[in-house]
């Protein structure tokens, strides 16, 4: 079975995140239609109710909206809002974890800054 879905979190959260990724990466543009619940279900081999729950999570957040009788669309301004959210999470998820690991290995702040500059080049 598809290993794209992992066991650590509810599937609907993972589906919502996947759609968010596609919006941030620009493969799902604003005002375009997202795949239907049933398409998500057969693509990931998951229960359609679960796929619907993931889509509805984004509807509740105003990232997607429903056009009656047609389907779900990406809302205007969705990408900008997702990027802002992500930036807030970035510090928590990456920076804090990186500093913890650096401390463990005895890497100084200066060395860490050097590495970041090197990685950025």
């Amino acid at each position: 079975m598809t290993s794209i879905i992992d066991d650590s979190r509810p599937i609907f959260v993972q589906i919502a995140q996947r759609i968010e990724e596609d919006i941030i990466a620009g493969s799902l543009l604003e005002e375009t239609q997202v795949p239907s619940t049933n398409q998500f279900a057969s693509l990931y081999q998951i229960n359609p109710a679960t796929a619907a729950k993931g889509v509805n999570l984004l509807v509740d957040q105003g990232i997607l909206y429903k056009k009656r009788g047609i389907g779900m669309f990406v809302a205007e301004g969705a990408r900008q809002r997702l990027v802002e959210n992500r930036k807030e999470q970035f510090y928590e998820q990456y920076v804090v974890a990186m500093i913890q690991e650096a401390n463990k290995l005895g890497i100084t702040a200066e060395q860490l800054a050097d590495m970041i500059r090197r990685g950025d080049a």
Partner: protein
Amino acid sequence: MQSAVAVSNLTKTYGKVAAVSEVSFTMEPNKIYGLLGRNGAGKTTIMHMITAQLFPTSGELRVFGEAPYENANVLSQICFIKEGQKYPDLFRISDVLDVAGGCFKNWDNEYAYSLVEEFRLPLKRRMKKLSRGMLSSVGIIIGLASRAPLTLFDEPYLGLDAVARSLFYNRLIEDYAEHPRTIVLSTHLIDEVSQLLEHVMVIDKGRLILNEESEMLRGRALTVIGSAAAVESFAAGKEMIEREAFGSLMKSTVMGGIDEDEIRRARALGLETTAVSLQQLIVHLTNGNSERGAVRL
């Protein structure tokens, strides 16, 4: 809403042995249920009672609001694909499909024949000449094409290869999306079906020990590995469903109150963490020797 199946205090005893004891649950219409548990746990007995092939010793049983026994109105809405289903030896596959077509109101003959091609079955071969896997495929095709409002698959894939099983899951999801109905899947291959299930019921020693939305179960248990002291400190106040010590190291699976903060706390304690699949969770819950009551999350 009218429930598809409602049982309360359902019990089946054989002499002194209770195959099913005091089981109560309801199944809502148009959901996919997983009925899971070890061999001899009582899953098949429960399905036999739901489909009126066995009398309960005691307890209440309603299918689509009515007692199923000798009730044509109810039984015509049920399709039960049994493990190791037997067919008349001299029937060809096409004969079996003809008979099945006469039994089910919603039968889709065109769909059945398209599945025969996909499962690569020899339509004109007699049933006694079919391999075990082919027989299982015939059952799966009947179960899917019947589109019965209540369809039960009891370990439907004896001898079925991985390709055919995957085909079954794909077609099941697609057809269910188009034609929602109540589906009960009983299987040991939990990892393969866990994503398809909306709801999970675990039977152990004749008792219902877990009855939960499957999404609720994801991420609810966590396996941690690290120094015994750190593991003990992390596990305090949680239910430990597995513990194994090697030297100063300890591996433990805990359940209850697991969220991102807790995972971060575990890592801060220097523990390694891994997610627990539904299959692993059920193995932990059903392999103990002790009598376990209902599981609390």
